[in-house]
């Protein structure tokens, strides 16, 4: 199912951590290396990489981008203190140093983090990168004119809640100290063991105060990465990057940057992109996409053609589609009703609606099925493949609804979010068998996000989805289940409005840990503990299948982003 590129990154209504819309086609299933058909598979420098996208690279300003791990195209231009490990699969979910010498030195119970910049870091114009530039870069992201970034800096830095950015109060943020040109210290108001993950976001990109032009900066941001912006038309509709001569592999072991030039075109229709990649004519042979999935229709054609199938990459990203309940609304205050629905759900028809088993895997846990999230499998209300109608009816009888009940399922009308209208009808059909008549309420894109994300108007039973800002249980469970993150008069994501003291305490405890593996196990256990209350009905995790041009080499797909990493790809 595809839709004209109606949503821009920042307009994503669900607190989607991923800045670039879902869907990318990497090359070859996870295990084998993506070898282009014929010819040697060792990557060489040179050539032009073409990127065919639906959504434009709008607001190409490090302060405004909401990325997961620094984003795909942005990370070619904006280097950050730390970044994601550019490797296949689970290894790709680790944090590694980028501009900094290490992933950060925590002190005072992980409330103070200190970083030191590498030697000899330069901008595209040869001027040196200093810690003051990093501080200024972060301060800029607080200016109302440059809104759009992630909320964590505002929540975590001391005294940042009402800071209005450098244009209004010029004295800057005391919570960030720069004792010398290569050291920078962050003071947090509470322990955050996962601060290194946050440091991968573009807000941590250095911006020299002298060259800042406010809202105009996005037209030509000063590059610290392997490529610099030479052309940006129609606010990211057409972006051309060329080599940044002052960048060197010596100070950046993550980005390979084989191609000399990167031509990012967007505003294209998704079926057109898939057609062009499969035809691979002319420049499309050396083309990839970073935001367009293979649709179910194209998948049927592609799997039938051996040569094409070899050019399809499979990626997994930390993302879950689920049904959310609002216990403040009858009859969903009764856990038995919620459990009955959990039993009655027919995950196979939902998955078919989402594109079939190749594009979606059934989910029974809220956390995505990846080690870095501390995934510990559990299925407290087993519905089997096609729904357990008997158990559901039994529970409904116990809950006092012997002859079934009628509820309204709210969903988004736009086709762009994983075909939600079709998923809603699949659920409607499944619950009908269990005697639950579902009326559908489809809302327009923005109307849906306003209704669902405000405590006053939140419906009792609605479709939702959540993605990881970074591959850890923290950004997945905290915003949804932490009682203190309930927002009374603004955008609230804690749909179940759960304010459970033990859950809040456990979240704080895990945040203290700087040993990420230990933290992951604790997040897994917390997920199972919350799952017991049946506040959500997990449905499926998306699987990204994307095509690449026939000349593309060295395709790396990490579980962090689930899509091919554009900084590793070669065209020669």
């Amino acid at each position, binding site marked *: 199912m595809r839709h004209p590129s109606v949503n821009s990154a920042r307009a994503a209504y669900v607190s989607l951590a991923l800045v670039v819309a879902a869907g990318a086609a990497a090359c070859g299933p996870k295990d084998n290396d993506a070898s282009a058909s014929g010819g040697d598979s060792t990557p060489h420098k040179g050539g032009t990489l073409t990127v065919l996208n639906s959504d434009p690279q709008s607001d190409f300003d490090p302060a405004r981008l909401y990325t997961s791990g620094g984003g795909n195209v942005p990370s070619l231009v904006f280097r950050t203190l730390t970044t994601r490990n550019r490797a296949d699969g689970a290894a790709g979910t680790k944090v590694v140093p980028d501009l900094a010498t290490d992933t950060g030195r925590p002190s005072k119970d992980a409330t103070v983090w200190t970083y030191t910049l590498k030697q000899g870091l330069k901008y595209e114009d040869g001027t040196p990168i200093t810690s003051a530039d990093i501080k200024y870069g972060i301060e800029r992201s607080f200016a109302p*004119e440059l*809104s759009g970034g992630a909320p964590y800096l505002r929540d975590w830095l001391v005294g940042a809640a009402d800071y209005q950015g450098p244009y209004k109060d010029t004295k800057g943020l005391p919570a960030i100290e720069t004792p010398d040109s290569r050291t920078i210290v962050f003071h947090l108001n509470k322990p955050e063991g996962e601060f290194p993950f946050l440091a991968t976001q573009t807000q941590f990109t250095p911006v020299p105060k002298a060259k800042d032009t406010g809202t105009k900066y996005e037209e030509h941001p000063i590059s610290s990465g392997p490529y610099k912006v030479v052309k940006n038309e129609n606010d990211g509709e057409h972006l051309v990057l060329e080599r940044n001569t002052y960048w060197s592999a010596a100070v950046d072991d993550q980005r390979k940057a084989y191609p000399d030039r990167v031509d990012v075109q967007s505003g294209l229709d998704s079926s057109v992109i898939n057609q062009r990649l499969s035809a691979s004519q002319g420049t499309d042979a050396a083309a990839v996409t970073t935001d367009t999935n293979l649709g179910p229709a194209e998948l049927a054609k592609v799997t039938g053609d051996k040569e094409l199938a070899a050019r399809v990459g499979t990626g997994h990203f930390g993302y879950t589609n689920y049904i959310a309940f609002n216990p403040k609304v009858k009859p969903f205050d009764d856990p038995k009703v919620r459990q009955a629905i959990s039993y009655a759900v027919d995950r196979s028809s939902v998955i078919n609606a989402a594109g079939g088993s190749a594009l979606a895997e059934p989910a029974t846990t809220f956390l995505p099925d990846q080690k870095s999230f501390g995934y510990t499998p559990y299925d407290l209300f087993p519905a089997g493949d096609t729904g357990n109608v008997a158990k559901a009816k039994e529970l409904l009888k116990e809950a006092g609804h012997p002859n079934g009940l009628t509820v309204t399922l709210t969903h988004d009308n736009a086709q762009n979010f994983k075909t939600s209208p079709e998923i809603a009808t699949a659920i409607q059909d499944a619950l009908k068998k269990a005697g639950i008549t579902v009326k559908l309420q489809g809302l327009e894109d923005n109307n849906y996000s306003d209704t669902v994300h405000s405590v006053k108007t939140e419906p009792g039973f609605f479709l939702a989805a959540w993605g990881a800002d970074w591959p850890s249980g923290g950004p997945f469970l905290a915003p949804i289940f932490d009682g203190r993150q309930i927002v009374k008069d603004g955008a609230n994501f804690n749909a179940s409005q759960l304010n459970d003291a033990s859950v809040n305490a456990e979240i704080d405890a895990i945040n203290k840990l700087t040993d990420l593996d230990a933290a992951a196990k604790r997040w897994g256990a917390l997920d199972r503990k919350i799952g017991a209350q049946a506040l959500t009905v997990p449905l499926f995790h998306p699987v990204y299948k994307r095509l690449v041009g026939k000349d593309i080499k060295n395709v790396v797909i990490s579980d962090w982003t689930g899509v091919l990493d554009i900084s590793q790809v070669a065209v020669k």
Partner: protein
Amino acid sequence: MTGFGGFLLRRTIGTLATLLAISVIVYVVFYVTPGNVAQITCGPRCSPEQVHQVALQLHLDDPLYVRYWHFLQGLVVGQDYSTGTSVEHCSAPCLGLSYQTDQQVLGIILTRLPVSLSLVFGAMVLWLVLGVGTGVLSAWRRGRLTERVLTALTLAGWATPVFVIGLVLMIVVCGELQLLPFPQYVKLTDDPEQWAWNLLLPWLSLALIEAASFARLTRASMLETLAEDHIRTFRAYGVGEGAIVGRHALRGALAPVIALNANNFGSAVGGAVLTETLFGLPGLGQELVHAVSVVDLPVVVGMVLVIGFFVVLANAVADVLYAVADRRVVLT
């Protein structure tokens, strides 16, 4: 020719009045559209405080008439906007800044207008050739098989929505037969030859839809003209059938075709949104649909005014062409 001067003056005033009325309609309609603009502009995870700041900066909390007054001021005098580090002046016909991208609306329109115009102009040429050609052929071959086939074909084109024709054409022509490259918009000024090659398919899909109404109209008015007395005169003087149909009957059919063309051309500028979306052409329609979905009022108002302007302009040009073609018509 004071007549013509008077006509021009009246039409300009009429156009301005119409456009002003349209801008009021759009402002009112989009003012009541739900969707918290500040939240959308600020970003999904913005705190209520941040959302409030953005609302202040974009004057979103002002009442409708104040915002409309700002809009008018912008048109006449221009507006000042702060980019944070400096103040930017948006000169006289200033349609304001896009909430989402802070770009000047006029700038967005001027970059996208040539795309829409080249799409619609090209399609217009094609649908005139296809439509009028089919019309002449079916009028000439009236009642015979060719007419029935042509009528069925043009109706088929007309009945199928553009996004179906466009996609199937693209898959067949570019995908399987690989006769043409996949359409990418190339500026006319950069490379006219590539510009035409790339727009051929979008032109064809848009033209196939409109051709049917032209075929029907041309056929009907040609048959009407062929029944008139002066055709008999020229037959009585031994003028060949070809000249009669080509010079006299076709010329008679031109006037109504011009009127219909003006109407279709006008609405096509805005209406080609489906073609632009499908072929990824960065035109007005595509951006307008996007702007509506994120309730980006300045962009929507600016674009609807430009599209409205072209519709009214197209009708005025048609009236003039009509009067030139048929001197009996007096320009009112």
